[in-house]
């Protein structure tokens, strides 16, 4: 029972129609379609399911439309300064957190409305450009990583991150084109560039235009707390909450624009310090188009990366790398902020560059294989390594956003024989759980088969 008319291949503005596509479309046209399920049965099933609807399901449903978006991660590995290159995940993770903050914080959710906040939203909707600074606490760094971000509507963002590695400053520039879903990372001093195709990222993972997200802000998601003074200005303080993301925002009483946003990390336990602070907002600032030019200068080493298809195995890889770099049991909590710290773990500040490289070869050799760490293979190995870390980082963030029942139970556990679980979660839309064990294997489990706490107590 096929009620659809014959398919004619769609116009060639979307990839062309040819001898390959035509039989494919016709083969599906010929597929037999039996009568659909009985409407009354379907309604009964829907009623039964709706009675079991939970708040977490609501958030997952929001994610279904792709409203929950995230950034990408990249890992720049220029040819010479091996240990410095490994720090680029820090900038990537920070950019990712930035987009998570922007998107999730301002995605629709149901909270009390108020007129002042609605006016603030109107102010933001009028702006076409935005500049702000984001600070992110990173394990292993004494000071928060600080990122300067500029956004140009529609669809462009640039972040600049400066950090110190081996006593020398290192600058990382990342430029996003949200319309084309591409990102370029540039390290000018090292003459290194990485171009990342993000069109293949799983649903809900593609970075969104953060200005557009601001402009879509739903006034009903903020709850007014009190009037306070911030940096000498009178501000209205609001509580924000969207799914697992909780934070605060200070709205300038005079301009009705945000002065500061603080967001906790959903992977951290309740009550933990805010992980991300956005401040120094400047709306409607004049920006030069050249700042968003994604052309890679001549003479740069260029790495191409496709960020699609991250999965549990990539997260297991990240855990394995973490264990190798720390040579210690896992911490009590593990989330995107710990991944950001991986960059810092790539170097020991007490060692010179050559000693640091030798250290990394020793630590990562067992993970990547001795051949991968040979000097002639190092460049390719590190690019592949960075890509896999990026996929793992993105998958971790996806879990934080839309998976169910994320449970970290690896506190105090080190690499082992596969008899202790490090973590488990149930991916959105899946019926079974994914469990990563201390031998970094990934296994599926039903709810009944899940490991139970506690396995081992953290050390003193």
């Amino acid at each position, binding site marked *: *029972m*096929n*009620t*659809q008319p014959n*398919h004619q*291949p*769609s116009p060639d*503005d*979307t*990839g*062309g129609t*040819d*001898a*390959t*596509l035509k*039989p*494919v*479309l*016709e*083969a*599906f*046209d*010929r*597929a*037999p*379609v*039996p009568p*659909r*399920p009985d*409407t009354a049965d*379907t*309604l009964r*099933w*829907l009623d039964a399911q*709706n009675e079991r*609807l939970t708040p977490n*399901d*609501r958030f997952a*449903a*929001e994610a*279904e*439309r*792709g*409203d929950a*978006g995230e950034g990408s991660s990249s890992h720049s590995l220029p040819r010479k300064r091996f240990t410095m290159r490994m720090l680029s995940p820090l900038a990537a993770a920070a950019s990712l957190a930035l987009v998570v903050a922007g998107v999730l914080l301002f995605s*629709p959710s*149901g909270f009390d409305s108020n007129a002042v906040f609605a006016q603030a939203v109107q102010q933001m909707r009028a702006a076409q450009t935005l500049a702000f600074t984001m600070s992110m606490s990173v394990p292993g760094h004494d000071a928060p990583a600080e990122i300067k971000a500029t956004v140009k509507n529609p*669809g462009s963002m640039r972040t600049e991150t400066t950090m110190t590695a081996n006593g020398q400053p290192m600058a990382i520039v990342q430029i996003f084109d949200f*319309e*084309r*879903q591409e990102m370029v990372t540039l390290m000018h001093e090292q003459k290194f560039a990485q171009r990342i195709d993000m*069109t*293949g*990222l*799983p*649903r809900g993972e*593609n970075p*969104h235009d953060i200005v557009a997200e601001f402009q879509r802000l739903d006034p009903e998601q903020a709850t007014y707390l009190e009037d306070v003074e911030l940096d000498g200005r009178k501000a209205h303080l609001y509580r924000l909450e969207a799914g697992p993301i909780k934070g605060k925002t200070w709205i300038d009483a005079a301009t009705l624009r945000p002065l500061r946003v603080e967001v906790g990390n959903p992977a951290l336990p309740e009550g933990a310090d805010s992980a991300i602070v956005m401040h120094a907002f400047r709306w409607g600032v004049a920006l030069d188009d050249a700042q968003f030019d994604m052309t890679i200068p001549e003479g740069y080493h260029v790495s191409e990366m496709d960020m699609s298809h991250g999965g549990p195995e990539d997260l297991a890889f990240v855990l394995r790398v973490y264990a190798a770099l720390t040579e210690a049991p896992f911490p009590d909590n593990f989330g995107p902020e710990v991944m950001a710290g991986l960059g810092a773990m790539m170097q020991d500040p007490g060692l010179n560059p050559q000693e640091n490289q030798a250290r990394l070869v020793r630590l990562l050799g067992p993970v990547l294989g001795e051949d991968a760490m040979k000097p002639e293979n190092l460049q390719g190995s590190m690019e592949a390594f960075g890509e896999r870390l990026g996929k793992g980082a993105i998958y971790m963030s996806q879990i934080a956003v839309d998976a169910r029942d994320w449970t970290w139970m690896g506190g105090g556990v080190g690499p082992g024989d596969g008899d202790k679980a490090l973590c488990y979660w149930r991916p959105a*839309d*899946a019926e079974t759980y994914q469990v990563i064990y201390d031998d970094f294997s990934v296994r599926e489990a039903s709810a009944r088969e899940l490991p139970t706490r506690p396995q081992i107590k953290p050390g003193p």
Partner: protein
Amino acid sequence: MPDAQALIEQHGDAVWRIAVRLLGDTEDAKDCYQETFLAAIRLTREDAVKNWSALLKRIATCRALDRLRQRYRRRESRAELDQIPGHDRRVDDPAARLEAMELRREVREALGGLPERQAEAFWLRHMEQLSPDEIAAQLDTTAANARQLVHRATAALRDRLAPKPTLRPVPESEGTVTGGQR
């Protein structure tokens, strides 16, 4: 809050067709069908829906592709529905019918291996004939990016399928995949 019954009656056939065609067996398709309406009804608690047809097609495609990916990740196989029980046998040539079935199996496997958004965009564009603007609205992106997604998916499928013998023209005497009766 939408009237679920009206939604099902108005859009049930389209959702069911997507589920059956993409999944090939009625049990999986039934789950996908029910989950699509459930997801749609939940979404409307959060947001107004401007285009029910496009939204439901998108959700159904998305859910069915999720199941395809799970199926191929677990290396599960399904026997495809070849005929409709209780209906007359289809009149087209058995060889052509088998060849079309094999092609559908290959395409399902290929779609299950594509990045999600590419696979969704491909199906919505070519099978459901949504416009790039409609796809863009559903995928929360631009029409240009929607075209890009379809383009990349098509190129990937072409690479995957072109060398396969199932795409060779079948002699007229045997019936053809491209020209068989419907």
